[in-house]
């Protein structure tokens, strides 16, 4: 009977393979039963205490105002549509934030390594100041700055088209006309052609050694085609903000609200300080010997950066960079504190009437999918550029 407890002639409690399996199974059981316990508890309490739950409310009219929206919104629209509007606000702030924070972070990180003493010190101060103050403090600070601007009626007006006041920043923007979609199509075709031209000329340059200016040619094709189409089709009109009505409200143009600006500046400045450190560390991780070898075969500083230092630094930079993108996206939920109607802020308002558990489950799933999407893109890119061997 005891032979059953033997695997390959070794007692099960001394067999490495068996032990490995036992540990796996025990931990799986512990984890799964904890989760089950939690879920069952929640389900029981929801029923016992009559806590509202379910997703049927999503079709009903939300009846709450949302301060700003990328797509048209009215309080009579449904909860689901309201959440979509709020989600787009989150995406607007975080995508713009990621782009700006990356650009500024790279500049500051490279400046930090500059042999220019002053530039390097300025970058150092920037990094240390913005990295070490809590984000919520920075957001409230930027909001305060915006709120100290004059009122709408007394605000700054530049060239009768740009308005800056305590309700935000207003500037002329484009308005799509009839020919917009044909123009957009032509521009897209231009970009595709430019990419092909760039690749072709780049290949020609490496194959034949003749200077072929791929970047210049690509830019001329893409911009040229788009400009010509722009002149012929006239797809865009310029919409200038106008003062309207008794209270002097501003209408038209591009409107960036005060809280949006405060959120964007706060997120960008805070995250770019971290990105700058990541970029600095990445560049420094490439040994001095690499630069020396590149210089000694005659590569110039720019060529060394492009072909030797940067490709190697990128492998170190990408993973922590993606994690900063995730941080920025999640941190954008602090918008609730400064009155920007992002997903969390709007969902929180909705809980006054609609079931909170359902709403926050939706919010959590939304953030999770945004983050996973970023991770997926980042990992794919990382796999593309990893070392082929080693």
């Amino acid at each position, binding site marked *: 009977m005891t032979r059953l407890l033997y695997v390959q002639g070794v007692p099960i409690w001394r067999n490495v393979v068996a032990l490995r399996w036992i540990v796996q199974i025990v931990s799986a059981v512990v984890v799964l039963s904890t989760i089950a316990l939690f879920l069952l508890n929640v389900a029981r309490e929801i029923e016992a205490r009559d806590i509202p739950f379910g997703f049927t409310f999503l079709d009903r009219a939300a009846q709450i105002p949302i301060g700003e929206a990328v797509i048209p919104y009215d309080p009579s629209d449904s909860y689901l549509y309201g959440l979509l509007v709020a989600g787009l606000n989150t995406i607007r702030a975080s995508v713009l934030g990621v782009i700006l924070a990356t650009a500024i972070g790279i500049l500051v990180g490279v400046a930090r390594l500059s042999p220019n003493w002053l530039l390097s010190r300025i970058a150092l101060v920037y990094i240390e100041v913005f990295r070490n103050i809590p984000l919520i403090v920075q957001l409230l600070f930027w909001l305060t700055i915006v709120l100290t601007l004059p009122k709408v009626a007394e605000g700054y007006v530049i060239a009768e088209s740009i308005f800056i006041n305590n309700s935000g920043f207003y500037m002329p923007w484009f308005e799509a006309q009839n020919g917009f979609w044909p123009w957009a199509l032509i521009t897209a075709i231009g970009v595709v052609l430019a990419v092909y031209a760039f690749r072709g000329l780049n290949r020609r340059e*490496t*194959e*034949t*050694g*003749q*200077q072929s200016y791929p970047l210049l040619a690509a830019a001329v094709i893409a911009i040229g085609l788009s400009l010509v189409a722009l002149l012929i089709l006239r797809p865009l009109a310029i919409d200038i903000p106008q003062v309207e009505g008794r209270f002097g409200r501003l209408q038209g143009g591009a409107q960036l609200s005060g809280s949006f600006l405060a959120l964007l500046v706060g997120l960008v400045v805070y995250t770019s300080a971290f990105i700058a450190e990541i970029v600095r560390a990445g560049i420094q991780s490439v*040994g001095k*010997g*690499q630069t*020396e*070898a*590149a*210089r*000694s*075969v*005659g*590569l*110039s500083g720019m*060529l060394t950066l492009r*072909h*030797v230092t940067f*490709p*190697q630094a990128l*492998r170190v930079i990408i993973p922590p960079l993606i994690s900063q993108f995730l941080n920025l996206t999640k941190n954008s939920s602090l918008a609730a504190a400064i009155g920007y109607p992002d997903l969390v802020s709007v969902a929180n308002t909705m809980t006054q009437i609609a079931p909170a558990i359902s709403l926050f489950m939706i919010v959590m799933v939304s953030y999770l999918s945004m983050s996973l999407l970023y991770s997926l893109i980042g990992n794919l890119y990382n796999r593309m550029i990893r*070392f*082929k*061997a*080693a």
Partner: protein
Amino acid sequence: MAETNGVQAAVDIPADKAEILARPLEERDDIVVCENVHKWFGDFCAVRDVSMRVKRGEVVVIFGPSGSGKSTFIRMINRLEEHQQGRIVIDGIEMTNDVRNLDAIRREVGMVFQQFNLFPHITVLGNITLAPQRVRHMPRSEAEALAMQLLERVGIPEQAQKYPAELSGGQQQRVAIARALAMQPQIMLFDEPTSALDPEMIKEVLDAMRELAATGMTMLCVTHEMGFAREVADRMAFFDEGALVELGPPDQIFNNPQEDRTKLFLDQIL
């Protein structure tokens, strides 16, 4: 020199080099001129008042205790270190702060490092073709043909498509030699090229260097391979505490050193 190293039979020597090799050393022109060169790191004087002239096609082995300034000295010859006093002229080009002069000098001078410093993210072939393609604007087919020819010469053409990390130390160092040669330099600098290698790989690198010397390449080698020095060097330079203590043919250095410090050091290492 061709007579002293005794391995020239197997290699073909380009016509211009053959002409130079045909003349005795004394009648050739100076390709490297250093006059009263100094270099400090902070308060520490790394190179002290060094003057040296190297003839075209000459092989100079530089040796001395660690920290004697020998590496710093050859690194100044392609401006990886800046000299702070004195004058350096490479093949008629004055080493000034003029970027154009520095680029020209770096194209004249190839370098091989102790730690190989191959580019880990590109293949062996890519390592060799990068500079000819990007700096000399050589067509890819031509650059690759040149690279293959150089890999044949150092004996590892079959490794062309591999990445540096897949190669042994000795193979990596031979790729590094091929990479430096791809820019067709007039002068080659070797900074302790065999010090990071396992003993069984030292010979293959020294063989590649011997072959290179036989083709009339001007070489400055920092190395402690005294067998190689005795066999290949035209002159040997002994550095100590940043100064050039003694400079002379191997025969003089090994059998009749003029300076006590040279004798003392050789007694320690031989």
